[in-house]
């Protein structure tokens, strides 16, 4: 099954600790990505620019509106994702716990939809 590990962190924590700390983090993150590729778990991974570089698009009544960035109440922002192939949720959680940014922020592990299964009834 596929799971996406959504990496959330407070940019101040990650980028406010000096160049050396950030370089170590980059190195560790790169090494973990390589490890996941070697073990066959990796599907895709990307780091995201901060939300101040983003735009949010909505279409209502056929009209498009675009606003600057998501402005969220929380300090933690979505900073990247790793799409993995794992046996089950427990394996996905174990892999997510190894992501170096888990030590600074939080990783949300979301199963990717299997369309052969019933859809949510809300």
């Amino acid at each position, binding site marked *: 099954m596929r799971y996406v590990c959504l990496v959330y962190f407070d940019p101040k924590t990650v980028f406010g600790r000096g160049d050396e700390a950030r370089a170590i983090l980059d190195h560790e993150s790169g090494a973990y990505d390589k490890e996941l590729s070697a073990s066959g778990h990796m599907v895709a991974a990307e780091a995201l620019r901060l939300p101040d570089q983003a735009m949010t698009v909505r279409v209502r009544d056929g009209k498009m509106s675009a606003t600057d960035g998501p402005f969220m109440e929380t300090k933690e922002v979505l900073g990247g994702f790793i799409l993995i192939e794992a046996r089950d*949720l427990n394996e996905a959680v174990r892999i997510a716990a190894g992501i170096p940014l888990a030590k600074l922020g939080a990783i949300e592990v979301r199963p990717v939809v299997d369309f052969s299964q019933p859809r949510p009834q809300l």
Partner: protein
Amino acid sequence: MIPRRQRTGAGALGALEAAYRTEARRVLATLVRLLGGFEPAEEALHDAFAAAAETWPRDGVPANPYGWLVSAGRFKAIDRWRRQARLAGALPELAALAETPQEPVMPEHIKDDELRLIFTCCHPALAPDARIALTLREVGGLTTEEIARAYLAPTPTVAQRILRAKARIRDEAIPYEVPAPAELPARLESVLQVVYLIFNEGYAATAGPGLMRDDLCAEAIRLGALVADLLGDPEALGLLALMLLHQARRAARVDAAGDLVLLEDQDRSLWDRDRIAEAQGLIERALGARRIGPYVLQAAIAAVHVEAPSAGETDWPQIVELYDVLRRVAPSPVVTLNRAAAIGMRDGPQAGLAAIEAALGDGGLDAYHLAHAARADMQRRLGLTEPARVSYRRALELARQPAERRFLEARLAQLGAEERAAED
């Protein structure tokens, strides 16, 4: 003899799938011992199969897939430690760990490792729910999602149970070992209980999504057979026989409409004779032992039932005797109730009703719907229509399962019909 390099190419991929099915749990069991924990062992297991997927199609399938996978997993784990140590700048310490001489991987280790895994997953220090989830995942090889579907529980809840159980094993340093002989009976009891709970969850649920639940019964029987095979303990044999006897009657237990069919009304030609014969052999072996426990006795009772050519020819005196022994070995209100119902069959409803009233009087059965249903049944057979109706209604108030509720409702309706027929 199998040649060392057997197959290459596509045949190797088939061999890999077969190895995953038959060897993955054993390889995990050994890796937990070699690497000292579940998490490194699971990583190593994954890495070993990834390596096999790369190597086997090219170089052929090794003669001993288990040994190959254990060695590959161990090698990959050391590799991983080296890389992590380099990152953490702790190379010298971990290098020493990696240099520990490799024990030869012997087939005779497999049995002990499998037992270690089962006993650890069923350790009494873990919560009962956690034991079940952990056993199904680590010994049974089910995924978290499959366990959640089988127990109609949210997947994150099951994932959490497994995580907590593993954290507990790690934090409390629960040893990865087969218990010493002195401890064995108590620890085995916990293992057998987990296996029987898994079976019952699959067996009692006649409603709800069917498929996974059948899988639970099959998995419980597989686990039970594994424990019986590895330990040869009479209670393990008894539990396996008991599950086989239940499973043998499965096809006759529910009718086309999904309603429960009582043992006395079941079509005995639908029973699985091979399973029954297997169970009978196991019971004979178990009864040869000096110690007789509750699972063997329950299996023996179930065997007396299935050995009767028809319900009317059931050997009730023998069943009452077996319940007498069971009541001494493992007394419980439910055993007393079942014995009372058997007395009703042996000596007639008057004696049965008295025995059931006595069992209810002992306490502990008031909230058990089957106690009230059994009393109602005796009252009905004695023509005590009004008391029978009160008892059936009480049973219906307490029953939860849809199939059981439909059965009790049908009995209540039948009671009304008999009364009207009598008045006419």
